[in-house]
């Protein structure tokens, strides 16, 4: 851990209690994020990535089964704070979030400007005038015309609303913003616009991002690092360049191969089968039954190996690579 590390997740666990059993949404996740960097958590539906956002920001529903691990923000474990302390000191102060379908999460009876100003009033103690002023600045930063400050959400297009949601996450100048599928419901050019906004903010303010998405192509617009999530576990963490050219984990490889491309001769491929349910994850490697490189060792859950400084959870890398001793083995006896 060096001075550049902003956030470190150690052995983070979030399980939900449901009438059908325990859903192991976030299963012993380890992740590091450096200052002014963006890490993309890449995964498909049902892999638990949205629960990651909730776990990091402690936005928990009522049916939490298990929630433990370390969330080190600049070396301080925010998991040790009480809920009230967390709300006051961390959430929307140091870390904020743009939730999924944020454009539908805006309060329909509040004007756009007021909504963006609200976090400033609550967390920075500003009065309404000051906060609205700050909101105006935010609108400029995200590219929304300032006369939209007094408009209601229904008067704005989807792209505009998403930008308002980003402004809301920005206004308290957090060090980290977690974005959950920020562009998935938007048009192509609007997506490109939003990514431009996010890039500009990153370069100008030094904010770090955790971008959660299933859209591989769009994620490359922002990614410094990519963490691939499958069935509640992180199976690979790699820097963007290496990842997009030569991913390490078989799942990552198949994912990259399934992206349709505008140019080039290769036809994309798909992965047959379905990801396992998080209710009763299989023992052994969770990707084994869909893996084209499966062999007999895969019946046992692989530890995480460090390949050229990058964690990969796959038996193929056992030879010559060191396994990490932390509880990323996820056998569950740590609970």
């Amino acid at each position, binding site marked *: 851990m060096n001075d550049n590390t902003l956030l470190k997740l150690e052995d983070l666990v979030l399980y939900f209690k449901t009438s059908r059993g325990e859903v192991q949404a976030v299963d012993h996740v380890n992740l590091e994020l450096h200052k002014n960097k*963006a890490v993309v958590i890449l995964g*498909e*539906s049902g892999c638990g990535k949205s629960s990651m956002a909730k776990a990091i920001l402690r936005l928990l529903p009522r049916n939490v089964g298990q929630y433990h691990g370390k969330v080190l923000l600049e070396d301080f474990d925010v998991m040790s704070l009480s809920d009230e302390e967390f709300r006051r000191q961390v959430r929307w102060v140091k870390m904020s979030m743009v939730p999924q379908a944020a454009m539908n999460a805006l309060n329909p009876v509040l004007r756009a400007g007021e909504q963006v100003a609200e976090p400033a009033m609550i967390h920075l103690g500003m009065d309404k005038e000051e906060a609205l002023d700050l909101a105006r600045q935010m609108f400029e930063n995200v590219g929304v015309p300032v006369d939209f400050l007094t408009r209601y959400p229904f008067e704005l*297009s*989807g*792209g505009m609303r998403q930008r308002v949601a980003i402004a809301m996450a920005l206004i308290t100048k957090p060090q980290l913003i977690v974005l959950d599928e920020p562009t998935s419901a938007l*048009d*192509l*050019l*609007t*997506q*490109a*616009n939003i*990514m*431009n906004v996010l*890039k*500009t903010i990153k370069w100008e303010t030094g904010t770090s991002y955790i971008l959660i998405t*299933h*859209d*591989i*192509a*769009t*994620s*490359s*617009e*922002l*990614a*410094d690092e990519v963490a691939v999530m499958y069935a509640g576990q992180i199976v690979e963490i790699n*820097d*963007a*360049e290496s*990842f*997009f*050219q030569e991913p390490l984990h078989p799942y990552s490889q*198949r*994912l*990259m191969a*399934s*992206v*349709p*491309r*505008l*140019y080039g001769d290769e036809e*994309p*491929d*798909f*992965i*047959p089968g*379905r990801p396992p349910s998080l209710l009763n994850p299989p023992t052994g490697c969770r990707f084994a039954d869909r893996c084209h490189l499966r062999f007999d060792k895969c019946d046992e859950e692989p530890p995480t190996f460090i390949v050229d400084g990058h964690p990969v959870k796959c038996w193929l890398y056992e030879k010559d690579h060191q396994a990490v001793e932390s509880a990323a083995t996820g056998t569950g006896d740590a609970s």
Partner: protein
Amino acid sequence: MTTDVQANPAANPAVDESTPLIEVKDLHVWFELKKWGFSHVGWVRAVDNVNFQLKHGEAIAIVGESGCGKSSLMKTLLLLNRPHKGQVIYEGKDISNLKGKDLKWYRSQVGYVQQDPYGALPPFMPVHRILSEPLVINGVKNKKEREERIRQAMEEVALTPVDDFLNKYPHMLSGGQQQRVVIARAMILEPKLLVADEPVSMLDASVRVEILRLLRKLQEQHNLSVMYITHDLSTVRFFSERIFVMYAGKLVEQTHIEELLNNPLHPYTVALLTGTSVPDASNAKHLKRVPPGEPPSLVNPPTGCRFHPRCEHFISGKCDVEEPPHLEPLPGHIVNCWLYEDGRTSYPKVASE
């Protein structure tokens, strides 16, 4: 295996496969805007003077962003909307005003695959009922025949083993499986045209290719014409041959896919291609070139060319005054843009970069 529907002789004189399956002429789909439900305030010009043809067994892609009119166009072809002006001609017959039995016959000729697979399936019906509905409605009285056809349809979309799926409800299926049920339902009446509206955009990346391949297989095996509507350019190469680009209710460019990808002409098309991301780490290092602004309102579209407020090659006095006509700078490649008035054949680069 004939059905009561296909035995309708008036509908099928010896069909000449060289004539287009569908022809759209001067199609205008306008929706009336009324204040208080009474007084006429204006028109929403969702589709404005669109012309094209679709041959038997041909697959075309219609590309555009939301509000470009592609959904309205598609719904008009399904006769879920009526044209305001203009005609839709199917196998030589004007279908714009069909009613009653003829309308029902036409509906059996066109299959509809929707964007949201879960919303497209009635949540309270099991799979076998979902698939038997179109058959029952279109007069397939024999239960055994229906079961046969359901089985066949399911095998075609690889929902096997069939018996495992027959009694499942939609919420028990994955997104990909749901979409396959939707496709099976669309195919079960053996249509000649399949209209697919963003069929994979709500599915996971790893499943999209599976569904697109399935659509391609169906097209090849049944000589099916397909209209594939999407805003994701990277999927159009899959099985479409020609591509149509729509903006603000108008067709702005039409050509073959490879030609479009290698030689896009309309500024909007260029913007779409530039805006499409390819997984490449260097993307994070620079901003993308995106045209400013947003698609215009369809109630009061800009005068002249509708893209002019956002166009990097805007010619004042021309583009904002007169609508560009259909120009064909290269054979088979039609574009509506004043840039190509003088025989230019490729997109001019902008000086600033």
